[in-house]
């Protein structure tokens, strides 16, 4: 599936590194095609549990480490509009829901994106992911002319309940940028990258696909996750 030209793409995720795994290839491609991309990252992943062995950070110094990694990931993708929204890791679901919708609405009104990428509510596993997805969907739901809304879903019951992703991009041409985006978040990805390397050497097709394809679901407004808010 070809990645379409867009007016502006807005990406909203809660943690530094959320963009790396699922969408950094898509982001890179949009940028290479001349589409402006904004990544709003809601927290600095302050509660990350990987502090290294041997340790490279404490609970208090981790945010600075992860901020630098986020900037490095943006550079790897060629992204120039990175917004750090100042919320705290693992607290998003406890924020005032209307305030969260307002934050998303403000971004949308400022940037006027033709496409928004976030998590798919109900299928995003982490409470921060779910809260982010809810806020984005609620903000977009209120719009008269809704932009395309692509959700990333990876809960265990995704295939069973949503079926196969209806948007699959071939991102093999920017595989290196994707790899560099993941490597930029080394404090959280070191262990995973090591395992990935091992699987790639064994010719594991699932891992290979992961580096060459990115999958999304068009948000199903006819099966909206809530009636109204």
């Amino acid at each position, binding site marked *: 599936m070809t990645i379409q030209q867009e007016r502006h793409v807005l990406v909203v995720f809660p943690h530094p590194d959320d963009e790396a795994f699922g969408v950094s290839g898509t982001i890179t491609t949009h940028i290479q095609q001349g589409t402006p991309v904004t990544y709003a990252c809601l927290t600095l992943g302050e509660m990350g549990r*990987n*502090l290294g062995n041997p*340790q490279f950070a404490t609970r208090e110094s981790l945010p600075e480490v992860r901020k630098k990694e986020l900037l490095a990931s943006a550079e790897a993708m060629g992204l120039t509009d990175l917004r750090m929204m100042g919320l*705290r890791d693992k607290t998003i679901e406890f924020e005032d829901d209307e305030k969260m919708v307002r934050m998303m609405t403000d971004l949308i009104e400022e940037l006027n994106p033709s496409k928004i990428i976030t998590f798919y509510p109900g299928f995003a*596993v*982490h409470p921060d992911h779910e809260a982010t997805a809810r806020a984005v969907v609620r903000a977009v739901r209120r719009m008269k002319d809704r932009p395309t809304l692509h959700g990333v879903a990876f809960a265990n019951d995704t295939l069973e309940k949503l079926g196969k992703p209806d948007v699959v991009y071939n991102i093999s041409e920017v595989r290196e940028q994707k790899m560099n985006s993941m490597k930029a978040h080394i404090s959280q990805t070191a*262990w995973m990258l090591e395992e990935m390397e091992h699987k790639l050497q064994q010719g594991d097709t699932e891992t290979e696909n992961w580096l060459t394809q990115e999958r999304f679901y068009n948000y199903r407004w006819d099966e909206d996750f809530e009636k109204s808010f």
Partner: protein
Amino acid sequence: MELVEVKKLQVQLDAFAGKDVYLHLETTNGSYASHFNKDFFNAGAFIRNVVINYELGKVVGDSPHRVGLKLPHGWVYAQGITHYELDEQGRLLLAGHDGTGKLAVALQISETPFSY
């Protein structure tokens, strides 16, 4: 951070006794625990920047250690502490890291508030 040496850490704990200090206490299994194992019962707790004043602080046991703070009307304690550090801002950071380096528990005290 360095591995806890009971005597050294005890000196640090004593230094904060009887003062109003900001507390950070957390314990967690990570948000993905139940994603990777649906039978896993995922519990955790997080407190940050609550002010306490303890009359007695004590580190006990072999590593991983237990650390308890006795308050005039209550208690704070953490289990699984392996490392500690008095950081450059004079904050006492205690942490329990599992075998892979993941943070499992943190107990931190400071005379000034921790950042947001």
